[in-house]
């Protein structure tokens, strides 16, 4: 058995600092200058100069002290300004609510179909159309058929329904749009709809239980309306108005124009205005269009004079 004490005593004797080592350490510590001594030594070697002397020395050396500082300050200021503007812009951009884009096709030929193309917009359709724009600014293009739309007024949506004949802008309401050969028929169930008929640019503020029909804007459209009125056995005066409106839209010789001339002739006959009908038949035959020549000649023969 070995005891720990003697081992440590021997170790203590051998690791005791020798006088030479102590002298070496002590002299090194004493020779080490204090901070004040270091400062004094530096000042004695490099005497302090005033700021004016420093600037003069720099000027002699060809370096301009002031403008460099000014330029540095300007660069820092510009950087900070740009960063601040970027941050503000970023903050505003982030603060703006996200408005996701919309692209929904609405198509149901035979039966009513319900769609919710955007939050707060409920559409019941039987026909064809599409919704574009964004969730807060839906733009509904309606091509044909019937459509009933319901908008939540609390969401303050900017909803616009556009057909070839009308533009209906609504904020929170229930209304329906029917587009057929007669034109576009807008009827309001609740709320208000600002309807603009593109033909003539008339604007109507429709409220609950009010309706408005916007007529076609071109000659083919008016031809379709006139034929639809004929098919529905509408008053001849309405058919005549539609035909004349179409003729006024397009005065160039065309198939559409010749069809409109024939419908006008039939309407005048239906109204018993024989002299005007005879004049219309003569005008058609002199126009050189042969599409409905046989029909016109038959009608004119019935009138007694070709």
């Amino acid at each position: 058995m070995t005891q720990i004490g003697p081992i440590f005593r021997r170790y203590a004797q051998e690791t005791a600092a020798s006088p030479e080592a102590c002298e070496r350490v002590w002299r090194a510590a004493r020779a080490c200058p204090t901070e004040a001594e270091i400062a004094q030594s530096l000042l004695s070697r490099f005497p302090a100069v005033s700021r004016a002397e420093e600037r003069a020395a720099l000027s002699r050396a060809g370096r301009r002290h002031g403008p460099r500082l000014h330029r540095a300050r300007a660069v820092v200021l510009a950087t900070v300004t740009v960063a601040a503007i970027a941050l503000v812009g970023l903050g505003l951009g982030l603060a703006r609510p996200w408005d996701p884009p919309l692209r929904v096709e609405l198509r149901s030929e035979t039966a009513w179909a319900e769609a919710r193309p955007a939050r707060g917009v409920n559409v019941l359709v039987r026909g064809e159309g599409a919704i574009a724009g964004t969730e807060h600014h839906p733009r509904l293009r309606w091509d044909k058929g019937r459509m009933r739309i319901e908008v939540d007024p609390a969401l303050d949506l900017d909803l616009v329904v556009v057909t070839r004949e009308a533009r209906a802008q609504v904020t929170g309401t229930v209304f329906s749009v029917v587009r057929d050969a007669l034109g576009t028929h807008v009827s309001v169930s609740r709320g208000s709809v600002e309807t603009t008929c593109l033909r003539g640019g008339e604007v109507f503020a429709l409220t609950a239980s009010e309706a408005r029909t916007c007529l076609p804007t071109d000659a083919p459209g008016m031809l379709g309306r006139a034929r639809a009125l004929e098919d529905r056995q509408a008053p001849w005066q309405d058919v005549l108005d539609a035909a004349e409106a179409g003729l006024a839209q397009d005065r160039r010789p065309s198939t559409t124009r010749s069809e409109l001339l024939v419908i006008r002739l039939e309407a005048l006959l239906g109204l018993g205005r024989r002299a005007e009908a005879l004049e219309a038949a003569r005008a058609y035959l002199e126009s050189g269009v042969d599409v409905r020549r046989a029909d016109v000649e038959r009608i004119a023969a019935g009138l007694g004079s070709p």
Partner: protein
Amino acid sequence: MSTPALAPNLVEAACAGDSRALDTLAARCAPLVLGWCRRLCGPRVNAEDAAQDVLERVLKRIHTLQDPDLLEPWLFGITRRRIADLRRLCWAHRWVPGLVIDGPSAGDDAERLAGLSELSRRVQRTLDALPIRERELLVLVHVEGRTSAETAAFLGVPVGTVKSRLLSARTRFARIARRHGLVPGLVEVPR
């Protein structure tokens, strides 16, 4: 093994700013500080550089010493803090390549152990393998022969803590010493 008798008036004069008294005091403290550094620095810190650092601080801060009777615990506090700083710097220097450290140069283990016998070399290696807290205890109590009360004053802990830690340190030292082949059948002797 404590410092050669230091006249209280010498410490007071040094505290008062007497440069000659200060020189005398520091010269007398040098063996003590260098001994601590040799035994506690470990293989990576140069003991003489560390002792020089400690003595420089003693010269600068002697006026902060409150009680001349507590000169040795005050010296030991400075020494152990400086050794800990240097060991941290050496660790950083080892793991961060290219790092320039403003401090004493790294120690040379071969040079440190050159003047020692084989037995003392093994004791040194065994001490180096101990946690620094237990190494301090063994050096103060067994190597320098201080009492538990003196050691408690040096380390700033209660006497009971010194005794319990000392028991743990002896046990660990004996275990590591046997592993290092220091002396077969080494046993610790309670004081």
